[in-house]
């Protein structure tokens, strides 16, 4: 999913009515948002966090210092690890790690649903087919369904 489409989807789920236009920049096609009242913003997670604030849903960025740091950590994970790797081996390792991390958790921060869950879900979307085929990443699965509902 192109970053612009992903951000539009996020806008909808956040209940933001006015759709933004995004441009893409560089080899990695990094999304850029031109805001009315300030400089442009570059980068998927940066823009996503900005949209969350716009929708007055700051709790999606975490409520304690710890949660906030964890949310940002997984957002970074999304753009560096999940987007960065495409070999089968890497993906396998990545899913295994996530599965092991989520074993005793409901969401990435523990018990609260956050932006990290949304963007990881979007990011993992393209691997879902292979998850169903291999069939044993149950917890990632669970996370995906929770996110969907």
């Amino acid at each position: 999913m192109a970053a612009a489409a992903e951000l539009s989807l996020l806008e909808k789920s956040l209940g933001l009515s006015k759709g933004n236009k995004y441009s893409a920049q560089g080899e990695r096609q990094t999304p850029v948002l031109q805001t009315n009242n300030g400089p442009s913003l570059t980068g998927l997670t940066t823009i996503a966090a900005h949209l969350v604030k716009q929708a007055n849903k700051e709790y999606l960025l975490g409520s304690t210092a710890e949660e906030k740091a964890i949310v940002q950590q997984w957002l970074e994970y999304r753009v560096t690890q999940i987007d960065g790797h495409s070999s089968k081996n890497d993906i396998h390792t990545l899913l295994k790690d996530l599965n092991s991390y989520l074993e005793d958790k409901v969401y990435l921060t523990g018990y609260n649903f956050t932006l990290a869950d949304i963007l990881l879900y979007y990011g993992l979307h393209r691997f879902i087919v292979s998850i169903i085929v291999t069939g044993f990443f149950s917890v990632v699965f669970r996370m995906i369904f929770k996110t969907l509902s």
Partner: protein
Amino acid sequence: MRLFVSEGAPGCLPVLAAAGRARGRAELLITCNPSTLGGRDCVVPFLTRPKVPVLQLDSGNYLFSTSAICRYFFLLSGWEQDDLTNQWLEWEATELQPALSAALYYLVVQGKKGEDVLGSVRRALTYIDHSLSRQNCPFLAGETESLADIVLWGALYPLLQDPAYLPEELSALHSWFQTLSTQEPCQRAAETVLKQQGVLALRPYLQKQPQPSSPEGRAVTNEPEEEELATLSEEEIAMAVTAWENGLESLPPLRPQQNPVLPVTGERNVLITSALPYVNNVPHLGNIIGCVLSADVFARYSRLRQWNTLYLCGTDEYGTATETKAMEEGLTPQEICDKYHIIHADIYRWFNISFDTFGRTTTPQQTKITQDIFQRLLTRGFVLQDTVEQLRCERCARFLADRFVEGVCPFCGYEEARGDQCDKCGKLINAVELKKPQCKVCRSCPVVQSTHHLFLDLPKLEKRLEEWLGRTLPGSDWTPNARFITRSWLRDGLKPRCITRDLKWGTPVPLEGFEDKVFYVWFDATIGYLSITANYTDQWERWWKNPEQVDLYQFMAKDNVPFHGIVFPCSALGAEDNYTLVSHLIATEYLNYEDGKFSKSRGVGVFGDMAQDTGIPADIWRFYLLYIRPEGQDSAFSWTDLLLKNNSELLNNLGNFINRAGMFVSKFFGGYVPEMVLTPDDQRLLAHVTLELQRYHQLLEKVRIRDALRSILTISRHGNQYIQVNEPWKRIKGSEADRQRAGTVTGLAVNIAALLSVMLQPYMPTVSATIQAQLQLPPPACSILLTNFLCTLPAGHQIGTVSPLFQKLENDQIESLRQRFGGGQAKTSPKPAVIETVTTAGPQQIQALMDEVTKQGNIVRELKAQKADKNQVAAEVAKLLDLKKQLAVAEGKPPEAPKGKKKK
């Protein structure tokens, strides 16, 4: 909370700077308590790849992202997140880090310099500079320094602290960087992490990291990768099948072994030399892979190709160092040489080095040949005489070699400067400039006297050398470093080289007035190859004065290139006696030990004689050294890697395949190779194996020893896959057709094993012989390797008893070896150290926590009583456990070990 750091991990810089900076505001008590974690590299339980720094929070959660840790420290101190900071951090993670890790890897691990390093980060640096100057702010996200500055500064510091990598023209970046670098928390972090060693402090960490991918393509490694199978044409497949079917009959007769080996007209005559190891040092693994072992692989390969091969080596015995050693041990130089020559010979025998002759340089032949070459040079006017000022000790009645003088350094005043270099300021010293010089032997004061020396007139020979190189280099297999070193010597212009020394232990100079002098080792050491051959056969000139028929391969480490590529060829060309000159100069880079250098004096590293006591067989040493052969770039010996490669490549890949193939023949077919009916898939496999075999030949013909080893492992991987897919152990129980299929698969597999045994022979001769004995491979097939894959074990062939080839290496075993050989470096091995960051907990906080535990306990009990949803109960239980843990920490008790089921 606990912060896990590791020696040389670049991420520690921003994290420590952020911690230091936030401390003032957040009332955090940071105590540094660097205790080791007993080799636990992997701190975060759910991450497959080890990651440091890591912050373990009191809740049990982990922050494993450097930026997230820094962010957390800032958040604790009351800072609020903003878009601009987020943007910088996202840019840092996605754009800067990849470029920067590549640059650091080139600089620190590969030793590249200048634009090779800067090239990959220049764009990112320019971007920061432009942003700073455009927004006209001193800091990245505004008027004050903030999270983004610390994270970016920390990432850039290792590189930019060297002014060479902070381009002048980026002035905004320049002043931003300087401002931050002078701040106290940053300074302290820099000192802690870089320890005033500059960027090299990152070496222990970076060396262990995989090479970052870069647009310029990947480095040469032997790591298995996703092998893309080449597409094969019908012709290739058909040819492979024909060759296979011809089988043993296509093998030529075995060359009869000659003694001595002499060149044969009309044959390929390969003369192989390995640099002569200096006698008074026990060779370490780096010396062994650098010359004798590399040359051995090529010699064995050359014999497998039925080329007429002579491989020779010997000990280099003359020189100052031997005299010194003799003095130390109270023996004569000759006795020292006799003693150490045997030590060398024993080591190489243990490593299974297949010399045709292993000689020494202290022989009458050496004197005869050296003096002959000298006389020829002298009469042809290529020897100069000159006067040199030198220190002479009257009491010892001799001129002092540099290393026999000590005194006060003329530059820094250090009292114990050596005659060639000051240990304190590192400057090179001319021995006569030393203040208060002392003879190291008798401690009396030497005097400056002028003395005559002989010089080889290299400038006069330069033109001949260039002509010869012009003829030799194109199309030859000189390694790139050998070409480079030779070219750079020529570019700088050759200078006359002194070829005499004031010593007794050397080849005498046959000239009046030079009775007290001998030839300098680098003039006559390379002549050692000739004299060693002369001691092996009186027909030595058929090898050494026969450039038309002999192909000379010389193996060495790169420091030896000037003597073999410049000096000896000049002597030989000047002597005008039709000498055989090097056709292929094969030079390796250096092998390091773990994170540093091998050092006899510090007892660091594995030396030839010790390898035998490790319990690890010689073939495993050979395999690993060849697998990491410093071919094209420096490499490092690592115990952990040795264990890994033994257990993965040898045990699980190669050993597993060969053993299974043999076992299937024994178990399912009574020890007789079954009938094979090849399907199109089998034929395709044949062609793939053939292709890989041809690759192996191409690589070894170019002496790319390490790369060729990879072909062996690739074939074995194909083999494993083939067995795995076809499951002969299941089919053998099935229908007639299934049983026939099991037979074909087993037969083809065992033939691949036979092929591998031959390909493996240059690398692991003992293992190769063991496989061949187990498979009862017919003798000609053991000693000849063609470019095609033949069926050497036809249906009906009876094999012998099959048993496992390799043993697993255990962690404990390797760890204890590491301790034993680590020397001083074991202490600095980069195990993660822990820095405890403890929040001060007063009695009130403890009371508050106790209350919360009680409260949470009630919630859990209620839920359980109501038989509530399982997930909900689990969540509340987890909260309770967290609280209990926090309480334990606050009370200073060790947290209880988690009870209950173990996670898988």
